[in-house]
């Protein structure tokens, strides 16, 4: 946890300074490459501003919707099942082999199947992102719940807590730091999968926007899309940071 905080909790000045450095690097690189396929940042920025006035926002909105819904469902299911398995040893013994066996399978290979079975609309895309993130959250949450101090559980049990109260007062808050770390990693994966699914059989979404710009050889637009997608991921990341600050204040002590 400490490591994460060191690298993610930046001050405002540090954000600005890092962004400027990145833009400078991009600009230098574009001069060096000197190819229309790699425009300098101000061209991309110009295109971004024009795009935002046009339909880029719609694409961004669609992508945001897909990724948020997926993360939400994956978290809800992953955390619930993870806590239940972590708390109930015998159930976990039954399910663990299945998880163990299916965990290493790269779930993206199911994309074609999902397209066939669920159609090429939002549903198949959301299901695929959800599936992938779900696994990460499930395994992390279960392991965290398994390793929770017995002492916390016993002491709250001795206060007369029922199963639901144990989940609410002990398991969930005790596993929250791990869950948020899993969500951070899951967010990265979700954005990558989002891009992949949006490059197939859709007319909406930031992934489509980028690939469509590419096919038009509108490289300024393409980079505007990349900036937009990066910013989207970054804002979601900040949201998780904020959630951690609010919900896990006790961790820093």
């Amino acid at each position, binding site marked *: 946890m400490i490591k994460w905080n060191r690298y993610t909790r930046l001050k405002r000045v540090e954000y600005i300074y890092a962004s400027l450095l990145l833009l400078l690097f991009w600009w230098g690189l574009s001069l060096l490459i000197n190819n229309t396929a790699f425009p300098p940042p101000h061209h991309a920025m110009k295109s971004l501003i024009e795009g935002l006035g046009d339909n880029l926002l719609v694409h961004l909105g669609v992508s945001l919707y897909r990724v948020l819904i997926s993360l939400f469902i994956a978290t809800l299911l992953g955390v619930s099942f993870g806590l239940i398995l972590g708390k109930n040893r015998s159930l976990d013994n039954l399910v663990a082999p299945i998880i163990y066996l299916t965990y290493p399978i790269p779930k993206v290979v199911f994309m074609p199947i999902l397209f066939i079975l669920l159609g090429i609309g939002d549903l198949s895309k959301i299901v695929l992102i959800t599936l992938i993130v779900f696994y990460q959250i499930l395994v992390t949450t279960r392991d965290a719940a398994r390793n929770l101090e017995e*002492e*916390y559980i016993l002491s709250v049990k001795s206060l007369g*807590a029922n199963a639901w109260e144990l989940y609410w007062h002990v398991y969930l808050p005790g596993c929250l730091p791990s869950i948020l770390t899993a969500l951070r990693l899951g967010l990265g994966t979700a954005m990558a999968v989002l891009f992949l699914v949006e490059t197939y059989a859709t007319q909406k979404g930031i992934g489509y926007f980028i690939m469509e710009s590419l096919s038009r050889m509108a490289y300024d637009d393409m980079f505007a899309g990349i900036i937009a997608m990066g910013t989207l991921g970054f804002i979601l990341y900040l949201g998780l940071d904020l959630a951690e600050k609010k919900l896990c204040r006790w961790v820093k002590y």
Partner: protein
Amino acid sequence: MNNHDFLTIQGLEVYYRQNKQSIDALENTNLTLAEGKIGVIIGPSGCGKSTLLNVIAGLHHDYQGEIFIDNQPPKVYSDTALILQEYGLLPWKTVQENIMLGLQIKKLPKTEVIHRTEEILEQMGLASLAKRYPAQLSGGQRQRIAIARSLVLKPRLLLMDEPFSSLDALTREEMQEYLLNIWRETKLTILLITHNIEEAVFLGQEIFVMSPFPGTIKRRIPNYLAGSYDSRGKIEYLNMVNDLRSSLQGGKTNDKME
């Protein structure tokens, strides 16, 4: 059963099942403790002290034999409070929230929960710590909070598993006296586990000596020296300590089993 025996345990047997093997943790264990007394359990590591306490606390239902607290089995009896060795305070709840938890679980109305929590913090001089997290407290403070969390429930039986073992010597003596003061005010029935012979003699009005393989209570020693500060250096006190020590080492033959 004696009428004033608040806690009675007769022929208690406890097994743990592990990998199809069954581990015999307690066998033919008997114990009685009158209401308002402080009992101390002492014995070597692994002899089943924590197991015994957990069964009395109603955390472990898989036992044979009889346990009655005020004529009710542990499962039914709800006025028991348990304090574990590492205190069991939840690191994600502030002191105040930790103390409120038991009251919330008892489904008391919100205003009463808040009122009783403030009251106990005030009484025990802990109000200034209310907003802190357990990790921001010293060992002694944590122990006090754990005691406050138990007392706020107004229990009639307080069980403590090696409550002072992770404290330094000075804090430990301070906490022993703190506990005695609480006992004098509340006349709670207390049963606590210790590894420390002097602590057993200082606190235990009844001392129960346990032996391992399989775990059982092999001796009960009434101790009239308990709770008096002046007796700490006296001959009788030292005799009692020596007696207890040899009993724990298993050498003594004149067991006065009562």
